[in-house]
Each structure stands twice: as C-alpha cells, then as structure tokens.
C-alpha cells in the first residue's frame, strides 16, 4: 500500500527534475525559476531545504548527484546552453546552526550551442566523469582527471547523434565483462522512422565511443531512458519512456575471436510494452535493485511496474 505525502517545495515555477544522492538522505530539485534546491532528510523523515540558489539564466532541466566518494557534488543543465558542476563547501558555523549549507560553482561547461537537455554522472568505477546531451544532437563526455580538483574538466568525447537528444543513461554495471555504455534517447519530432534510441559503447582499442546498437522499433519521440541497476545480471535492461512504457533486454553476444576488441553485438528483446498511460510517458525510473519501474505520464498518473 503506497501513501503519498506532500512536501512544501516552494519553487516559484515548475519543477523539472528530482534527484536523490547515493544514500537517499539528500535530494535536489531544479525548476524553471532557474534555481536548484537541496534538501536533507531529518531523523524523523522530514525533508528540510538546506540550500537554494540561482544556478542558470534559463530553466534548469535536470540535476544529478555524483557518487559520495567524490564529495558532495551536483551537476545541473539548463536551457541557457550550459551545464554546471557544483560542490558543497563546509560553511561557517553560523550557517550550520541555521541548517543551511553553501554550494559553489566549480565549472561551467559551455560547449553546447543549444539547450542542454540532460546531464548524468558516469558510474563511479569510471572515475569522475559526466555526460551531457543537447538539442543539437551532440553527447559530450567530460572527465575530471584529478578528483580533488573539480574545476578542471576536459572534454574527452563528442558523440554526434544526428537527432536532437533529450535524455541519456549510463549503464551502471561495474562488471569487467561490460565495457562502458551509454544510451541516448531523442525527442526529435519530425516524421521519420529513424531509431530514437541509440546505444554507444566504449571501444578499448580505438579509445572512442562508437554506436553499438540502435533500437529500430522505437520511432516515436523519447522523453526518458534508464538502465536498470545491475546486481549481477549478465544482460542489461533498459526502460524507455516514449508514447508508452517499453522495457528492453540487451544480451551481449559472445564476441567472436576475430573481432575481439570490437563492439559487442547485442541480442535485443522487448520484454514489456505498457500503454496504460494512454498518453506520452514522461519519465521512467528504476528502484535500487532494478526490480520495480516507476513511470509518469501525461495523464497525470504515476505507475509502478514489476
């Protein structure tokens, strides 16, 4: 039985994204009022806003936490064509008493020429790395070589997807059998039958990301995409939010000896397709074990799938 409680969010405009940190004790929300708010969970389960500041000069689309081993680090991306990385600094004792914390901008990533639609940190075993995608169809992967210095980020890869991108998801699997992989979804609205979900994989030999797969069955605009957390599975599960909820499994086929070091080939199956929302599905999100999927749609409903 699920019970919902309202939290006074106090944003002056629409909230576009909600994101939890690794432990689930902190949360960040971002809004069209150009600000990001950070919330902390108290002992009795209440959420208190401990920081609220203006982050961009346009609507902030997404906000995401880095792994706590890198510190308290957030990244946000916005319509103003930039993405920014923020770090919490230990404030003066006055701030602490009032329960407020202070966040500073460590870097601004300005390479995009259009609205940046998503920003996601890579799994922590890849180091301090993040990817952004923009409406101009380019996915950019940045790395901070020195995890102690968050102001130095270098653009490591630029992947051109040819379609305006709306969402990205890193494959969370830390197994050595799986190379780094990122899925990109596109909300391109022009009538064509191009695949709107593309999977890019890192190739050790060429040291570049190359397209491993394109899900040809997804031809409607994609609004959100999410790999399920991998707790020891050999295959990958990907949820796609498009005109309905779709779940795909990607099973890596064994690489032939001749093409060792080449791209993995995948056997793709669609394991679920739910159109209960009867309208565009806006977001999908997996729980921590990857066993329950939550989806939200334009019918104003949030549905949980198992």
């Amino acid at each position, binding site marked *: 039985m699920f019970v919902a409680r309202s939290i006074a969010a106090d944003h002056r405009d629409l909230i576009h994204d909600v994101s939890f940190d690794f432990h689930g004790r902190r949360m960040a929300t971002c809004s069209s009022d150009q600000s990001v708010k950070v919330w902390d969970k108290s002992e009795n389960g209440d959420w208190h806003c401990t920081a609220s500041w203006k982050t961009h000069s346009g609507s902030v689309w997404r906000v995401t936490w880095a792994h706590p081993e890198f510190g308290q680090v957030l990244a946000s991306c916005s319509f103003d064509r930039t993405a920014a990385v923020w770090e919490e600094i230990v404030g003066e004792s006055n701030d602490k008493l009032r329960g407020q914390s202070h966040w500073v901008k460590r870097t601004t990533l300005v390479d995009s020429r259009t609205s940046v639609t998503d920003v996601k940190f890579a799994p922590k075993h890849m180091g301090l790395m993040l990817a952004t995608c923009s409406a101009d169809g380019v996915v950019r992967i940045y790395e901070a070589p020195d995890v102690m210095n968050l102001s130095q980020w270098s653009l490591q890869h630029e992947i051109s997807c040819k379609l305006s991108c709306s969402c990205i998801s890193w494959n969370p699997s830390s197994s050595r059998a799986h190379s780094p992989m990122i899925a990109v979804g596109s909300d391109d609205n022009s009538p064509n039958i191009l695949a709107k979900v593309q999977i890019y994989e890192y190739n050790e030999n060429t040291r570049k990301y190359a397209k491993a797969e394109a899900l040809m069955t997804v031809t409607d605009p994609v609004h959100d995409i999410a790999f399920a957390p991998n707790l020891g599975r050999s295959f990958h599960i990907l949820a796609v939010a498009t005109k309905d909820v779709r779940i795909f499994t990607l099973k890596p086929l064994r690489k032939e000896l001749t093409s060792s070091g080449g791209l993995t080939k995948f056997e793709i199956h669609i394991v679920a397709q739910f159109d209960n929302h009867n309208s565009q599905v806006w977001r999908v999100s997996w729980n921590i074990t990857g066993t329950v999927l*939550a989806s939200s749609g334009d019918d104003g409903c*949030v549905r949980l799938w198992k």
Partner: protein
Amino acid sequence: MSGSKPDILWAPHHVDRFVVCDSELSLYHIDSAVSSELKAGSLRLSEETTATLLSINSDTPYMKCVAWYPKYDPECLLAVGQANGRVVLTSLGQDHNSKSKDLIGKEFVPKHARQCNTLAWNPLDSNWLAAGLDKHRADFSVLIWDISSKYAPETAVATEKVRLSAGDAEAGLVVTKPLYELGQNDACLSLCWLPRDQKLLLAGMHRNLAIFDLRNTSQKIFVNTKAVQGVTVDPYFHDRVASFYEGQVAIWDLRKFEKPVLTLTEQPKPLTKVAWCPTRTGLLATLTRDSNIIRLYDMQHTPTPIGDETEPTIIERSVQPCENYIASFAWHPTSQNRMVVVTPNRTMSDFTVFERISLAWSPVTSLMWACGRHLYECTEEGKASSLEKDIATKMRLRALSRYGLDTEQVWRNHLLAGNEDPQLKSLWYTLHYILYFIQYTEDMDQKLTGNKGPLVYAGIKSIVKSSLGKNVATLLSTVVVCLQNNALMGLVFSNCSKRLFKNTKTKYFCLCFNVKLAVISRVFIFNLNNLVSLIDFHESGDLNLNVVAMALSGYTDEKNSLWREMCSTLRLQLNNPYLCAMFAFLTSESGSYDGVL
C-alpha cells in the same frame, strides 16, 4: 462566440463564479462537492466540483460578445456587444442598491448599426471599454467608450437604429459619442489592451494587426498579416501575443513586430479560441472547431533576446476534457492549470491540466515525484506481508534488523527476516544443523574409528540423483540434511551416535520427515547397506503407528519372506504417503526404487 455556440467566462475577481453566454447570460457558482449526491439544481462538473445556477439575465438578446468588468464588483457587471453594434452594460446581480446601479442598462450606440465582434475592457482604467465592429464605409470600427460618459438623448433622425434591448424604460438613455474612434473603413475582428501601457490597444483588423496609441491616434503601428483573430497577450510576458487565422496560430514579439516569431503547426480545422494560461508561464491552449481536444503549447523558456535565431522549445500536448465536442473553454484566473469547458448543448465540466511529472526513486525505497510546483513523497506503508513487498524493501528491512549477523544461533536469522518465508526458515535451520553436526563430530572425534575423510554435506536430491552404486565410503562421509515443514528436524550422519539411534552397528542414513503440524515425526529410512535400520517415533499419539512400529521391527532382509509379501500388498492400502513410501522402499528390490518414487 459565434452562432449559437455558448461562450464561457470566469469572473475575474470571484474565484468561484463563471458565466455561460449564448442566448442569455447564466451565472453559475462553483462548489467543491466530493460526495456523490447532488443538491437539487446542482450540475456536476467534475469529481470534485459542482455548479449551481445563480441567476439568468435575458435582458440583452442578440449577444455577440461579452466582456467582464475588470474591477471587483459584487454584482458581476458585464458589457455585452450586440448584433446591431450596441454595447450594453448589464448585470447579473439583484441588489438594487449596488454601486454600479447607474451603469446598468447603459447603452453605447455607434452611428451605424453593424455587428459588434469583440469587446475589451481596459484592465487599468476600468472606465474605458473598447468595441470592435464590422466594417462600414462611413464609420470607424474601433470605438473606445467611456462608461462614465453622460447620456445623450437619441435624436429622432436615427430611425435606422433598432432598439434591441428590453427594459429600457427611459427613452434615449444612450451614449453616442465615443472617446476615440479608430480604424476607418475597416473591420475589427479582435481587440486586446496591452498591459504595459494603458493607452495601447492591439487590434486585429481585416488584413493587419495594428497597435493604436491613444495619445496619438493618427499614428499606428501595423503589420500586414492574415492572423488577426483572437489576439491575446501573454499575461507573463507582455511582449508576447498570440493570434490566429483559420488553423494557424502565430506568436508575435511586439518588440520585433514585422513578422511572427513562431507559427505553430497548422490544424486541419479552423480554430475557435486561443488563450494563455494565467497561472503558468508560457502555456497556450487552442481549440479547433468540432473537436473534443484542447491542444496545449508549452513554451517553457525565457523569451529569446532579439536577434537570437535559435528555435524556442515548444512541447505540444493534447488533453481531452470531455467526450463531446467543446464549444468554448476558459482558464481559471487563479487556480493552477484549471479550466472549465462547455459543450454546444451547455454541459460544462471542470478540468485540470496536469503538468509533466518527474520522479525519482530513493535508495531507501520511497518514491518522490514533482508535478508542477508540488513535491510528493510516496512510501510503502501498511502491513503487506513480506512476500508481497519488493525485494528491495525486504533487503532494507532485513539489513536494518541485522539479518544474517546472528552467528551463535544461526537459525534465529530467519526470525530477523520476519519469520514469514518458509523456505528461508528451512535454509537457516539446515545451516544450523550442519554447524551443529560439525561441532558434534568434533566432540566425538576421538571416538570415531571410521574413515576420516572430509565430510560432505548434501541434500536429498543429490543423493538420489547420483548413482546409487556409490562408494560406500564416500556415502558414509555424506551427511544428508533434509528439512520439512515445521522444522523439527533430524540430521543424518554416518557413524551415528548412540543418543539418537538405537542401532549402532550399522552405518546408515536416515531422514526425518515431519508430517503436518500434528507433530508426528516419522523416520524414513534409506537403507543403503541393506542393514537393519531403525525407526524412531516421537510423540505419536496414534495407536496405528505403534502397529507400524511392530510391523517394521519384523523387517527381514530375505527377498522372499512373508514379511515382504505382506507389506508390499498391504502398503497400497495405507493412506499416509510417507508410510507408503517407506514400505515401498523396504519391500522393493534393492537397486530398484521406482516404487518409492
């Protein structure tokens, strides 16, 4: 409002009143009513709201357009434009002592009768009312009336004027002199005052959009366009204006007025209404003729600076407030994203447009989602049995209860897991007994004479599956551990101890099965050595079991003995499956255990 289709307007200052106008004005009051029963005379608008009719005003027939008085007025003062060009002030209240009593019934008459297409009340100076009329070669089509003007007697010359309103007892109480007259020899289709300056009026004329500055009426800024219907200003960005023509909506930036900054995708059918949402930035709703869908255009961005060529992001959505075709709709002035729609046969419904919801799972298995400006947290509560809970919730609860950490009495761990999963229970008990046996054999170590090979702990399946001609020595070092139901359980081990089993000479395995809750435990004997095995009965209150005990004690190895014959025939009559199986085993040929299985 066209033809006989009703139009609907919210009161600007009463959050719970609206007016439906077609041939008459009907004032409704909205109530929230969650219960399914309706008061007499209430109409249900939605699951939460009902509307009651407050009053009807049919004083002014031939209504073509209506505008609400912008200032607060308890009497709901309205201006009505008629088919003959007259603008009449009327009210839906009944209070005869109202402040605006002297305004009610006032008529503003143009020189030449023609249809009044649109009315717009100046939001800042509420005395100014703009009327847009059809074309007349000798007259202006945009007239600005001052509602506080004095009356002027109607001259007898104007016989062409047809008096269309009833209740006009005093002869000639009309106003004929407008404050301003604009737009000569042209038709005016739509009007809108610009909020940034009370003297600026945006008019959709026949072939162009014109901004009139009332301080200097000879000059006007205009742009040639076909999109002249339904001009409306975005309440949040005062430079942004929407207008339409046929099926196409154009969005204008008044700072850069030469051409529209955006044209939305063309609809196959002509549009009837476009309206900006007053409670949210950048949301435009459009309605096409003969349709039950309201299309929403979400322009979530800061207004692009002039000269910036990037395409603004527009999200298109459609909502369907009701089943039938919609005649008109009106946004609620304050309630977030709420609108009321009316169908051609006057059914109304109250509808809220949901914002896009973004959500996130918390690692502690609660769900957080954001809709519009609100944030909700959803947790799994209640006493769902642990089997129904998702594994993530179970893992968390068990980790919190320190599951798996009890290393002394290992079997207690299943209690920490909630004591609801029988398989988990048997697993922990198995582990417990294995550990117990390890401890036991260590104690007994000095007494053992048999082989001291490493002990293998196997379940019953592995024994049965593996070849039965197994090396006895290996078997001896195999401990068969098996659990059933309610966990009173015995261990099987080789080199049995004297305490548990009576026959000490032989090496054998035995398993205990518990049968249901009646605590009859039975020993099922695998006699792989063809030696006499032993039966152990706990707490049997059943006399028959003693009989069985007697029968079993007559066990003999000989294949053709009477015992075997009797048992093999009689066992088929036994009801208890365990007994049955036991006798089958004992009476079957060695090496063939089909009867058992």
